[in-house]
């Protein structure tokens, strides 16, 4: 029987042997292997491997010269493996001999690679890794696209139930589609009453997400019915915190809004993804719309998730939705005119806003690494020059330039890999330490981990860094003049290669300037946003939300009485100046509705003007310090009254006086008219970076709105009244939970998290860059001073003053710095276009900022030059001249 030699060994041989020998050597080995395996297969196998290893360690030499320098044989016929191993051993030995040098290089690289690894880990988790759902690329969200005349700039709008059921019925390119919304419950029965946010989901929801319960079951279609909907699926977190992970939880009962719900299942922990809010709820209940609710077409208040049929692209799905929307527009012009539909991949929705920021941060941190490279290149260069004699002796003994290059490059790579490992540790540590911070700033933050792709990134970054930092010094050292180097004897401090090092300073300064400019612009943008005129005064305002369960507070009289009593008692607390309620606080968004003026016929929704609608109570204006411009404020006992913002007054009545006019909000009631009693200042209801939207505030004595955010203006630090305010609510109803207790300043800050995140990280990178650049300037100047000590000594001997010497050295440092600043300024201006979309209220090419940044860099450069300059001025001419 014919056996064949080990495949791996043969493959290695054919890879490594020179072509002209391959056939003969491999053929010979195989032939002898056949002979041997007849006697002893195992022995033959072992013999083949031994021969292979010997061949690999020292392949047959070929007379014709190989082109690769790595192959170029030394006088002893070294193979690449042997010289590599020797160089590695040598590099490690050399570095152990100079531990402070090695540690300095490793530290600089650890910072550079570590910062890059940390940011890449984030990019990897947020942008690169697919979502943790089954076939996540098929999951899409469906939105309405509202008419642009009425909703300028808004492209994704919640969906109306009737439209959803038509979409679901008509669409062919979707596997499945589910509707859901958020629903708040008061959980009672176990100690303090507690507010829980549940997902109210259509029957297909779990099927669309392809999520299976860890225990029990999920909803069946029949349970999407008001009569059978008293069932609940718990999240893993809720199950553990409220049932201590009891195995027999299925079948138990929860009291939600005072009604019993039977637990039918528990979802696994991985189902809850913070960045897709519906999955990160405490629990889920069936949506259970009534027939009437299903038929609502004009109120857009639900969310839709869908799964595309395999092979269907988002564009195809979009085309189908366009067709369906057109038909629905014709069928229901009153409700649907101008309302389109838009298909958005779930992944894009989750990471969409952060993508630009992350890409910008990755670019910025890449610049930091480049600066680190320049610094390390500098250090390596100094070291190569200090070892010129050693290298010259090697050359004299026959080492080619390629061989010297290889050896120096390997030293650089050893350092880079050590730096990369240290950087990995640094990145992991800082990601763990910053996990809490990240969680508030980033979608998918909990998924940020070090995985195989991050490890690969570290390896690649280390190699590229090593080659970038090592190549120039290695090339230059290989080129240095043998004779001169040997003649210099023990002296290794002459100023050789100053030009290369000046270029390195230029690079470092230019890169630092780009980073500093980015950080400065980000910071100014953040400040501009924080100081933008919001139209109200956020200082000294405490906010908290009270949502009354509908099952307990059923009539308008009960609801109104609760809020009136609560607000009155809060106003009576010592330190409180004013208190009022509003359905949605400023800068947090809220309802936007069409509005109809009395005397005008109702237009198609598409053509109606829309305004932000807030339900507020008396006292709200004073609590927020929103100025009353004309007319009067709400008073207790008013019925169906309205305040309009200046922008709303202008939009609806132009220059005419709005006071006394009557309007209806057709989404709430087509008949109940409200009378305008006052005009108030404009307030930013949505994004701080956007214009204040025209807003109306409505109030009536007996209302059905059961969830209010209280705003409490205080004369004392607002949080000191937190306990007392909560006590007021509990005194009225001990079972009533309180949510979202925080200051209004905090609310504002929370809207700026992503800007603060970028500004913070960019600032950090800029500081690191500045530190690296100043260290670079310092070390180059020190080196130059040492190299030119003889010249400086002569100058001093000839009468140069201390100031002259100091000026000489500083000029030496400032020339490349200024060139670097100029190049950096050009680069910063070129990158301004990218930054444009990320900043507010400041131009990314703002000349004042640029000047300030350039000035900072120049000052830092002068500071870095001072110590070498001082050292130069203290040189004793006698000693220097004698030494040389």
């Amino acid at each position, binding site marked *: 029987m014919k056996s064949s030699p080990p495949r791996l060994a043969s493959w290695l041989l054919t890879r490594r042997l020179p072509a002209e020998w391959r056939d003969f050597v491999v053929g010979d*080995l*195989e032939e002898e292997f056949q002979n041997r395996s007849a006697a002893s297969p195992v022995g033959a196998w072992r013999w083949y491997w031994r021969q292979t290893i010997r061949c690999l360690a020292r392949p047959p030499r070929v007379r014709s010269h190989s082109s690769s320098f790595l192959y170029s044989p030394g006088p002893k016929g070294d193979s690449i493996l042997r010289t590599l191993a020797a160089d590695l051993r040598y590099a490690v030995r050399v570095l152990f001999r100079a531990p402070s040098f090695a540690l300095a290089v490793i530290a600089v690289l650890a910072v550079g690679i570590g910062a890059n690894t940390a940011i890449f880990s984030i990019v990897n988790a947020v942008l690169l890794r697919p979502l943790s759902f089954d076939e996540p690329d098929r999951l899409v969200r469906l939105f309405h696209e509202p008419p642009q005349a009425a909703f300028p700039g808004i492209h994704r709008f919640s969906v109306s139930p009737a439209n959803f059921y038509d979409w679901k019925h008509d669409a062919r390119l979707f596997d499945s589609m589910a509707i859901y919304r958020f629903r708040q419950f008061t959980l009672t029965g176990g100690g303090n009453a507690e507010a829980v946010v549940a997902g109210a989901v259509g029957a297909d929801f779990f099927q669309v997400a392809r999520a299976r319960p860890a225990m029990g079951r999920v909803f069946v279609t029949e349970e999407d019915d008001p009569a059978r909907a008293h069932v609940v699926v718990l999240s893993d977190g809720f199950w553990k915190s409220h049932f201590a992970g009891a195995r027999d939880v299925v079948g138990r009962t929860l009291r939600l809004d005072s009604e019993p719900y039977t637990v039918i299942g528990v979802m696994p922990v991985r189902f809850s993804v913070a960045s897709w809010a519906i999955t990160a709820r405490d629990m889920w209940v069936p949506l259970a719309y009534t027939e009437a609710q299903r038929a609502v077409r004009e109120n857009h208040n639900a969310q839709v998730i869908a799964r595309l049929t395999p092979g269907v692209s988002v564009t195809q799905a979009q085309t189908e939705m366009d067709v369906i929307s057109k038909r629905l527009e014709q069928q229901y012009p009153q409700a649907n005119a101008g309302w389109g539909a838009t298909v958005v991949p779930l992944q894009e929705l989750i990471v969409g806003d952060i993508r630009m920021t992350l890409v910008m941060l990755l670019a910025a941190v890449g610049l930091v690494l480049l600066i680190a490279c320049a610094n390390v290149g500098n250090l390596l260069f100094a070291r190569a020059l200090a070892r010129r004699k050693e290298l010259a002796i090697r050359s004299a003994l026959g080492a080619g330039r390629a061989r010297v290059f290889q050896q120096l490059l390997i030293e650089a790579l050893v350092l880079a890999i050590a730096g990369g490992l240290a950087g990995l540790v640094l990145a992991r540590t800082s990601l763990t330490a910053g996990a809490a911070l990240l969680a508030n700033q980033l979608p998918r933050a909990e998924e940020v981990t070090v995985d195989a792709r991050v490890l690969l990134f570290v390896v690649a970054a280390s190699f590229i860094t090593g080659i970038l930092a090592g190549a120039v010094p290695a090339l230059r050292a290989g080129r240095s003049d043998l004779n001169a180097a040997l003649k210099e004897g023990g002296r290794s401090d002459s100023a050789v290669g100053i030009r290369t090092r000046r270029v390195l300073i230029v690079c470092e300064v230019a890169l630092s300037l780009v980073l500093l400019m980015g950080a400065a612009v980000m910071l100014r943008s953040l400040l501009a946003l924080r100081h933008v005129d919001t139209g109200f005064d956020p200082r000294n305002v405490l906010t908290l939300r009270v949502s009354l369960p509908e099952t307990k507070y059923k009539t308008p009289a009960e609801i109104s009485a609760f809020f009136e009593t609560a607000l009155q008692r809060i106003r009576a607390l010592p330190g409180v100046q004013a208190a009022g309620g509003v359905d949605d606080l400023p800068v947090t968004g809220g309802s936007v509705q069409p509005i109809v003026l009395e005397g005008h016929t109702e237009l198609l929704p598409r053509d109606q003007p829309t305004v932000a609608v807030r339900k507020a109570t008396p006292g709200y204006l004073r609590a927020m310090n929103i100025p009353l411009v004309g007319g009067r404020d709400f008073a207790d006992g008013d019925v169906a009254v309205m305040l309009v913002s200046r922008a709303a007054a202008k939009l609806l009545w132009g220059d005419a006086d709005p006071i006394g006019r009557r309007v209806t909000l057709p989404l709430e009631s087509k008949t109940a008219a409200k009378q305008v009693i006052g005009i108030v200042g404009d307030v930013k209801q949505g994004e701080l970076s956007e214009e204040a939207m025209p807003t109306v505030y409505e109030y009536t004595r007996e209302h059905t709105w059961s969830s209010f955010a209280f705003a409490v203006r205080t004369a004392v630090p607002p949080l000191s009244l937190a306990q007392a305010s909560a006590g007021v609510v509990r005194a009225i109803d001990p079972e009533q939970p309180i949510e979202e207790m925080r200051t209004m300043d905090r609310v504002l800050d929370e809207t700026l998290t992503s800007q603060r995140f970028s500004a913070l990280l960019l600032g950090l990178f800029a500081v690191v860059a500045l530190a690296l650049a100043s260290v670079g300037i310092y070390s180059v100047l020190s080196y130059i001073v040492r190299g030119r000590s003889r010249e400086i000594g002569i100058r001093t001997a000839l009468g140069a003053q201390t100031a002259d010497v100091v000026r000489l050295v500083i000029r030496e440092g400032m020339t490349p710095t200024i060139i670097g600043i100029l190049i950096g300024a050009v680069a910063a201006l070129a990158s301004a276009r990218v930054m444009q979309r990320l900043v507010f209220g400041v131009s990314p090419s703002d000349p004042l900022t640029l000047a300030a940044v350039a000035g900072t860099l120049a000052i830092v450069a002068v500071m870095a030059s001072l110590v070498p300059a001082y050292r130069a001025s203290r040189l004793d001419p006698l000693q220097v001249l004698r030494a040389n």
Partner: protein
Amino acid sequence: MWFKSKASALGDFEQLVLFGVLRLDEDAYGAAIRQEIHARSGRDVSINAVYTTLDRLEAKGLLRSWVGEPTPQRGGRRRKFYALRPAGVAALGHAYRAFTAMAHGLERRLETK
């Protein structure tokens, strides 16, 4: 360079390889030479060492080589055969004579030691 190759003496391993080629006559190729050396001298040398030496001897003008036909036994690969050139025969003879001349009369002492 011709004067150099003539002047250089044969190394120990070069002699073994040349003897192998001579002994195998028309059938001298890498594996056969390697086995011949192994069988007779007990030295289990690596195939690459054999080829390195064959190549050097060819460069010195002591050997000539030709490529044979592929055989199935070798996985369809070809053999490279070697034969002595006159200069090779002369050099080997020279080395052999030097060796035996130096060893003459010492056989008993070499055996006993």
